[in-house]
């Protein structure tokens, strides 16, 4: 039966180069309506949290390393940064709830099938630890500091142990949605998020620590940025036509800015970060901004991919066609 819909034909690709155009197959949609729903989260709250949570988690790891290797001037700002970032995060998370007064309902159950539930329990343990570590730094050097030292040390260790979980679980959170730009990239997303977190924490270290102690931050910046940029490229290759959403519109601008700032920050840190305090601080600020841009960019790409039904339909059509091909091959 040959039919042609009167309603929303998304068959005509909008713009794009010749290569893209060939890859797009015509398909029908219901008046162009989205099929999956875009997240109702406020980008300021939730993308903001992805940045702050990543920054906090990775900073706690870096701070513990700095403390263990006798770099107090690097450890101090990282602990304070982690403590501050995680409290801002909690405020943002509660603020984004439709019923903020019911935030404690999160603690009714523990569900490994829900990355948000897992994350809540991780934060429930991490936030007090990061707070203790930060308060230890604020206690100064007198009698008070001596008294709180065991608690602060336990906090520093606990935050360092839980920090990697805080920095990485959010990748599972976004990937476990039907949002094409997030879900299709579920294999690479954890590495994108952790790389971004590492370069943000390194950025905070470079911004705040004296050059005499910022060596590890320079290395961490290079490792984190390399990991993040590689993971983003792999993700874009894996998700096929959905990768458009990372290149177009607001998301595209943010992702391009993030990449430019990351490269600038890493090159600056490697070239001048150990010599010039000013260059180190500038590189650190660039890396922090890069991480924030990347999180908001990924967030926006997800929303864009949910809005246009072609990003839902085409990958699923391709999957069905591939399954049919392999069935036919099995029968032959």
């Amino acid at each position: 039966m040959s039919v042609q819909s009167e309603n929303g034909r998304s068959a005509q690709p909008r713009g794009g180069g010749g290569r893209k155009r060939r890859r797009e197959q015509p398909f029908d949609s219901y008046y162009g309506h989205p099929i999956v729903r875009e997240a109702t989260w406020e980008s300021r709250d939730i993308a903001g949290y992805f940045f702050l949570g990543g920054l906090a988690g990775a900073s706690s790891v870096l701070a513990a390393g700095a403390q263990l290797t006798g770099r107090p001037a690097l450890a101090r700002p990282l602990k304070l940064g982690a403590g501050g970032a995680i409290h801002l995060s909690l405020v943002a998370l509660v603020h984004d709830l439709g019923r903020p007064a019911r935030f404690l309902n999160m603690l009714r159950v523990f569900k490994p099938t829900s990355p948000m539930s897992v994350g809540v329990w991780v934060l429930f343990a991490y936030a007090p630890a990061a707070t203790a570590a930060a308060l230890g730094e604020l206690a100064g050097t007198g009698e008070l500091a001596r008294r709180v030292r065991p608690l602060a040390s336990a906090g520093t260790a606990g935050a360092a142990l839980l920090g990697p979980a805080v920095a990485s679980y959010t990748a599972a959170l976004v990937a476990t949605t039907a949002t094409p730009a997030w879900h299709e990239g579920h294999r690479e997303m954890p590495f994108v998020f952790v790389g971004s977190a590492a370069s943000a924490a390194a950025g905070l270290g470079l911004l705040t620590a004296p050059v005499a102690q910022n060596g590890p931050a320079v290395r961490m910046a290079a490792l984190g940025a390399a990991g993040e940029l590689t993971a983003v490229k792999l993700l874009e290759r894996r998700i096929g036509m959905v990768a458009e959403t990372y290149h177009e519109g607001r998301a595209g601008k943010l992702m391009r800015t993030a990449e430019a700032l990351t490269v600038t920050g890493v090159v600056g840190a490697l070239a001048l970060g150990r010599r010039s305090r000013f260059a180190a601080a500038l590189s650190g600020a660039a890396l922090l901004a890069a991480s924030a841009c990347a999180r908001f960019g990924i967030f926006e790409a997800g929303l864009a991919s949910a809005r246009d039904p072609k990003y839902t339909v085409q990958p699923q059509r391709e999957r069905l066609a591939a399954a049919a091909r392999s069935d036919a091959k099995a029968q032959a």
Partner: protein
Amino acid sequence: MSAQPSAANGASALAPSGGACAGSDSLLGTLLEQGEPAGSSGWADHPPRKGFFTDTSLCIGCKACEVACKEWNQLPEDGLKWTGHSHDNTGGLSADSWRHVAFIEQRVAAAEHQPNFERAPAAGGEGKDGFRWLMSSDVCKHCTHAACLDVCPTGALFRTEFGTVVVQQDICNGCGYCVPACPYGVIDKREDDGRVFKCTLCYDRLGAGQEPACAKACPTDSIQFGELDELREHAAGRVEQLHERGVSEARLYGESPDDGVGGDGAFFLLLDEPEVYGLPPDPVATTRALPRTWRNVGIAAGALVAGAVASFAGARR
């Protein structure tokens, strides 16, 4: 998990969601179980799974289902507006519309069979000289592997003894995770309320031995309610019947327990590709990839620690 009180009690307070390990059961349920989701969700004694079979070849687009649903569930008015999209002025499923009738106008070759209408008069010549109107009442699919339920961090979404998926409104805190998690884009947040809402398959009516309001109101039995096994059998027969009559494009959607969501509790007979009706062609429970995702999260977290160790081990000062 303790035994649950059986059937005929619609009170949501009896739901198996309070247990601290609700999630681990549901993880196993998601990964292993097929068929009876009520049993795998902890209901020791439960009635057969209930569901909808929506036969769109019988739909006349009267929207009685939409009205009956709004009336019975006391859903707020959500805009009286003209969309210009055929007779569809509802737009889609939402927090305030739990049934939605889609209207699709298509040019077809008049010579071919038109199930809903008398054959359109041939305008002469060949090709798409005829017209057909597809109508379909959409609803929450009550998936066997329900991503919304899996990702709900409060336990507000739960599996009823009838195998359906329902939000406990006194628990939901409006985190919104279920909204992008649903592969069908069904569950939705009511903005002025903050919580999420969707079809309950009339949990209250089921508890009292009644059929859901939409099925009760449907004048052509396009919406059929019953035990899922019986509905599947009946639907297979209906497709065969339509094929014999020459409606070769009739196909079932969501009836197979082998699909990406383990089969829908509410499935459909369609007369065109799913995406024409605004349905995903190959939906997959978004939590199906979660074991692999968690593994990669673990590897990435380990890489962060390794990277930090390398940063300190290699630094001179």
